[in-house]
């Protein structure tokens, strides 16, 4: 396996917390895990914590048993130390692999996260009511339920989006014929057969984990090849906030860790309902939940590849829905990234979600607010970043294309400064050279930087006239991207998957 991987962008991290504040939050999280501790609804997990020295006792609510667990600080600290700081996420194309190194603020952006609605957009021409000759084009949007075809289309498009580094299925599959039994096989196959970048998803049915792993092994080239180049990884939202460890997710965590594949332990409390709205309270609690999950993975298997997953969100106080595109989102998540860095655990974070229902100014504002801030944090793995609208309810391929352009510019902005002795030598030489000419223009000397990719292009969808044609141009660009053939797996691989993995819909059987 080559050592190639996607470059993402290495940033100089922006941090909100000083050392004292960081330690205060860390200490608060440890104290929360000791008292009140967690409410665990999975016996095996409770036994695991007990076996390693946590105080565990059984209680009953609504005629069902659950376990209260006080996790000692020392157990958490040990788990933090044993969690790997460097995790490689594989990809069908080795050049698309990701290196998540907690010691290096290299930022990758990717999609997410299982929206039920697919938003189709076409441009339509409208005539002025005052002057029929005066016409403009405006978008007409249509909402449809997501299907495997949509997921395949999203994967194919995302393969072509140059600034998208990894793929979390952005749309839920709801075709006729999709059920719990075949959900996992279809969502992973529709993804893997249409994108050469890393594929990550939650697991719908624990019983289907082996099928999914077998599929990934066939794609990667065998059992060992998959562990060396894990073309898939998993997300487990282990906690239902506040502090309740979910039964079936705990079982999935056991199975995935035992299978030796990378796993995100994510938590998504809502400030103002399932967590305090105040920054300190939210961050202390989400950190406690994530640390408890990380601890569980390390108790199952020391050194298990686990990623610190923070998806802290605020409640709107007019309807208690999630509010993502707001300053508090940045506060919560910037702090969480800083905590993950302190723990030397790679960080899965979030950006690019808002309340906007369609592509446009509101979507741009909400996304820019969080895309920019979260890029600056140095979080290794930022999901939700492409195409989401209406919070996380809708995926718009057009919005993904717009987000790609925006994220490209943000990645460029976040690059570290290129100032060293060598660049200063070049500058001094250039100043002398240009001042020796009659025209005193530095334009010619922009070429080296230009061709090295150090100079950004203008906004791809810019409009030069008085009409705003951004969406029209983005639709056109999307059509160009979508006209390329899909990067399907070869025929033998597809045949093997269909032979060995049951339940994949026949219409997905496409190969290179």
């Amino acid at each position: 396996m080559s050592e190639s991987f996607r470059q993402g962008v290495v940033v100089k991290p922006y941090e909100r917390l000083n050392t004292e504040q960081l330690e205060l939050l860390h200490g608060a999280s440890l104290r929360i895990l000791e008292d009140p501790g967690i409410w665990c609804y999975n016996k095996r997990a409770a036994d695991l914590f007990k076996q390693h020295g946590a105080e565990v006792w059984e209680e009953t609510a609504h005629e069902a048993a659950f376990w209260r667990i006080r996790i000692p600080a020392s157990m958490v600290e040990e788990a933090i130390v044993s969690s790997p700081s460097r995790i490689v996420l594989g990809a069908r194309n080795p050049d698309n692999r990701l290196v998540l190194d907690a010691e290096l603020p290299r930022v990758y952006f990717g999609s997410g996260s299982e929206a039920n609605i697919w938003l189709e957009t076409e441009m339509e021409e409208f005539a002025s009511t005052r002057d029929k000759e005066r016409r403009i084009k405006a978008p007409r949007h249509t909402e449809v339920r997501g299907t495997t075809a949509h997921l395949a289309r999203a994967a194919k498009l995302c393969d072509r989006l140059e600034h998208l580094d990894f793929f979390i299925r952005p749309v839920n599959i709801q075709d006729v014929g999709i059920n719990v039994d075949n959900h996992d096989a279809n969502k992973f196959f529709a993804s893997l057969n249409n994108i050469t970048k890393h594929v990550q998803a939650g697991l719908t049915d624990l019983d289907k984990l082996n099928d999914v792993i077998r599929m990934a092994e066939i794609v990667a080239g065998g059992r060992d090849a998959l562990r060396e180049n894990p073309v898939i990884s998993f997300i487990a939202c282990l906690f239902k906030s506040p502090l309740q460890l979910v039964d079936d997710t705990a079982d999935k965590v056991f199975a995935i860790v035992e299978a030796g594949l990378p796993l995100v332990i994510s938590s998504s409390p809502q400030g103002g309902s399932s967590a305090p709205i105040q920054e300190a309270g939210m961050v202390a609690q989400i950190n406690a939940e994530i640390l408890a999950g990380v601890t569980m993975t390390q108790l199952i298997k020391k050194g298990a590849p686990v990623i610190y997953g923070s998806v802290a969100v605020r409640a709107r106080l007019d309807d208690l829905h999630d509010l993502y595109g707001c300053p508090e989102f940045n506060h919560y998540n910037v702090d969480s990234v800083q905590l993950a860095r302190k723990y030397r655990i790679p960080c899965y974070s979030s950006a690019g979600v808002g309340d906007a229902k369609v592509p446009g100014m509101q979507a741009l504002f909400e996304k820019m607010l969080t895309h920019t801030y979260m890029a600056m944090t140095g979080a290794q793995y930022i999901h939700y970043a492409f195409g989401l609208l209406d919070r996380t309810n809708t995926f718009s391929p057009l919005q993904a294309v717009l987000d790609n352009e925006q994220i490209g510019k943000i990645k460029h902005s976040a690059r570290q400064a290129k100032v060293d002795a060598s660049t200063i030598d070049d500058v001094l030489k250039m100043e002398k050279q240009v001042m020796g000419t009659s025209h005193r223009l530095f334009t010619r000397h922009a070429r080296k930087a230009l061709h090295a990719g150090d100079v950004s292009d203008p906004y791809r969808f810019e409009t030069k006239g008085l009409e705003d044609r951004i969406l029209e141009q983005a639709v056109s660009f999307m059509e160009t991207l979508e006209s390329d053939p899909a990067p399907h797996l070869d025929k033998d691989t597809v045949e093997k998957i269909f032979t060995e993995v049951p339940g994949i819909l026949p219409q997905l059987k496409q190969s290179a």
Partner: protein
Amino acid sequence: MEENVLLEKIADNVIQGRVEAGDEGVEEGLEGQPAVTELVTEAVEKGLDPKTIVLKGLTTPMEDVGKKFEKGDYLIPDMLAAAECVGAAMDILSPHLLKSGVESKGKFIIATVAGDVHDIGKNIVAIMLKGAGYEVIDIGNDVPTDRIVKAVKDHQAPFLGLSALLTTTMRTMGDVIKKLEEEGIRDKVKVLIGGAPTSGDFASQIKADAHCRDAFQAIDALKNVA
């Protein structure tokens, strides 16, 4: 070095935009290798026909650069670098071309008018026109009207380019044209104007011969007014 190899090297260096050996190119690692100045000097010393040098070493690659620009492969810095190369080569070749009976496309006086020190646009136009084969005489910025008119007279220049960035100074372009009329030489010189606040309407209003939005339009305009 054989004649054809030398001409190809000159052409390559125009495309790379390398005026002198110390210059970088579009590609890595060219610094230190002979560039257009050194190669054209060598060609002249070896007795190559200056017209052949212009045609094969300068004009053809400059056309290639123009095509790359139109396709979006090259941007303004690449065009300017190539034009600077041609300009530098023409400085070396001009006396030899004259001996062969070949003249430049004509003298082009260029200036930013009085009260205005902005000269980026004017300088870009100067570089591009020199690269296009004109003998460009750049008399600077904030140039009083009388000095502009005197330069036209002294050089008997058939072309004059005036630049201004400010709405307050662009009116001075009209003063220059009036002065050319008063001196009785307006019909002997084509006046091109440019600069952010200027327009085709403004050019008509002050009786200029052409308005140029950018350096490329200037080259086209010259073809039309010549």
